[in-house]
């Protein structure tokens, strides 16, 4: 079977075409804002403008005609309202015009589910780290439960804001990572675990304050920021592993590109005798293939959406979805 998935919860418009076990096309275009930040209306304009050209390119690249697609899938949330609405409207029009079934997918669940496509993992604990989201999720009792999440900003957002304060441009992730590699001295920063959850605004404010004091090398600050923030991510992931007794860990989301975070998470997983896997980056960052792949599984498990049920869900909770597929 062939699924066509449209991702558009935030600044990235992604069109993915997949079968049960293969990505046929995975094309995306991210709205670049020079200073970062969240721009719902601009994201909606960006998605509306690029939807048709990207859809055409994806079909061409996959060697598939729209008539051959078996199910239209779209990112139903969580995300930016205006952006979600553009994608949902396009998905409805495709489904109605070509008489195809339609399925709405939870963005965070898709991030973890797509790790099963090429990874030898069946039932992993997922650490999903991106610009806007940071959560540890795993299947328990027929739903993806949230074992820990950020109480304020996503780790990617914190890194980007820190980079902006340093004046080294957006997105900040790769740049902070490079700086951190040249870090030598660890500088005390507030720990980012708060109860079962995470909080990055404290560590962000403190590292910016220290930077402005001019008393520290920015390489050391970048290094210390990563060590402290990533240690918190590893701790919450480890707790979920212990709690669920699972033996697989996947790292997903744009921040999964960070090698230090991979290293720390891998070390923890190996200590616990658990497998560690990171999907190819094109399936880590926001993309349409993860939406198509997850939607196809849901479709094959008998899940159907009436058009009236394809309303967007800006605050779509991960544990709202009954997981009846495997």
């Amino acid at each position, binding site marked *: 079977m062939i699924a066509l998935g449209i991702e558009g919860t935030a600044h990235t418009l992604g069109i993915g075409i997949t079968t049960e076990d293969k990505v046929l096309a995975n094309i995306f275009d991210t709205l670049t804002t020079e200073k970062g930040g969240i721009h719902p209306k601009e994201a909606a304009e960006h998605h509306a403008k690029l939807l048709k050209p990207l*859809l055409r390119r994806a079909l061409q690249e996959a060697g598939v005609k729209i008539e051959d697609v078996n199910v239209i899938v779209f990112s139903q949330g969580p995300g930016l309202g205006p952006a979600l609405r553009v994608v*949902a*409207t396009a998905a*409805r*029009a495709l489904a109605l*015009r070509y008489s195809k079934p339609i399925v709405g997918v939870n963005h965070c669940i898709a991030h973890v589910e797509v790790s099963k496509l090429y990874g030898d993992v069946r039932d992993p604990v997922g650490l999903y780290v991106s610009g806007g989201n940071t959560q540890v999720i795993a299947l328990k009792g027929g739903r993806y439960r949230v074992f820990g999440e950020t109480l304020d900003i996503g780790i990617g957002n914190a890194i980007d804001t820190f980079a902006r304060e340093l004046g080294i441009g957006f997105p900040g992730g790769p740049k902070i990572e490079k700086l951190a590699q040249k870090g030598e001295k660890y500088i005390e920063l507030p720990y980012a675990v708060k109860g079962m959850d995470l909080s990055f605004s404290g560590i962000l404010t403190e590292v910016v304050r220290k930077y402005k004091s001019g008393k520290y090398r920015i390489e050391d600050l970048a290094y210390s920021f990563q060590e402290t923030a990533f240690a918190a991510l590893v701790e919450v992931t480890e707790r979920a592993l212990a709690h669920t007794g699972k033996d697989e860990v996947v790292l997903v989301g744009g921040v999964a590109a960070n090698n230090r975070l991979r290293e720390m998470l891998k070390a923890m997983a190996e200590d616990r005798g658990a497998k560690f896997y990171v999907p190819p980056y094109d399936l880590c960052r926001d993309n349409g293939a993860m939406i198509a792949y997850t939607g196809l599984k849901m479709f094959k498990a008998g899940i159907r959406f009436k058009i009236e049920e394809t309303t967007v869900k800006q605050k779509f909770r991960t544990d709202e979805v009954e997981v009846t597929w495997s």
Partner: protein
Amino acid sequence: MKKAPIQGMIEIEFPSEDIAKVVYESVIIEDRTVPYRRTKTKLELEGKKIRIEFTAEDNSALRGTLNSYLRWIKVAMDAVEL
């Protein structure tokens, strides 16, 4: 900033009744669920035409709403005409 209430109507003619129907059914879901933002709208399908009637509290309320509706209609048309 004194208010200047605006009311009006936009009518779009589509190449066929089928296309108008697909666009209408795609957009009506958003029309029904978008949170009220100081503009009241009414969407109607009449053969090949979609009518949007609106009353807005003021200029900026109308601009926001019109931009959203025209954006949805555009993207539905793009999908139909793939």
